[in-house]
């Protein structure tokens, strides 16, 4: 993976979803994205986010890890108590 220039903002896509072309331009597309897609027994929604790992920054894309067991842990915030 190529090193990115260290700027303040690194574009990363967020959720990667299959939105049909006809819907893309319309307001309905916005609503599609805010639906909950993650269900047990269904494929995991893909995404790409910027990350800190091993002392550096990089973009992480979930589908790059397809073929392995993955645990995704959401948590409210850094520096929180529990």
């Amino acid at each position: 993976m190529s090193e990115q220039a260290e700027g303040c903002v690194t574009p990363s896509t967020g959720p990667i979803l299959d939105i049909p072309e006809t819907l893309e331009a319309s307001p309905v597309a916005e609503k599609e994205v805010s639906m909950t897609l993650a269900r047990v027994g269904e494929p995991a929604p893909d995404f790409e986010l910027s990350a800190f790992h091993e002392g550096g920054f990089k973009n992480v894309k979930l589908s790059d890890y397809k073929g392995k067991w993955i645990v995704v842990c959401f948590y409210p915030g850094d520096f929180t108590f529990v």
Partner: protein
Amino acid sequence: MQSLGVEVFAISVDSRFSHKIWQETELSKMVEGGVPFPMLSDAGGKVGTVYGVYDEAGGVDIRGRFLIDPDFNIRAMEVMTPEVGRNVNELIRQIKAFQHVFATGEVTPAAWEPGKPTLKPGPDLAGNVWKEWKPEEQV
């Protein structure tokens, strides 16, 4: 986790800069070398929304944990409000159970641990589970 061949990703709405500082100032003091897995930055909670864990009022992703198998399907999820921390032993138990199921096609009954009896699903098993598995095994 590495010994089970599992990739772990932590995600919060905090920026990658915040992750860096948290790792350097606090986590590396709690855990030798800090946490070894990537800490992802879900700005705006967009990925949290798609996974059903984004709390709009608080502007944070609540405590949700998803286990995904090598075919990219979600096998298990556990979502809790932020006051109570997770139990990693249960996660490890689930990973071992799902890995066993994924590899063998058998199913694991309640409270299964490696070494305990599993069940081979099929029409013959219906009505005969009592021969193979006892509820006392749960405790």
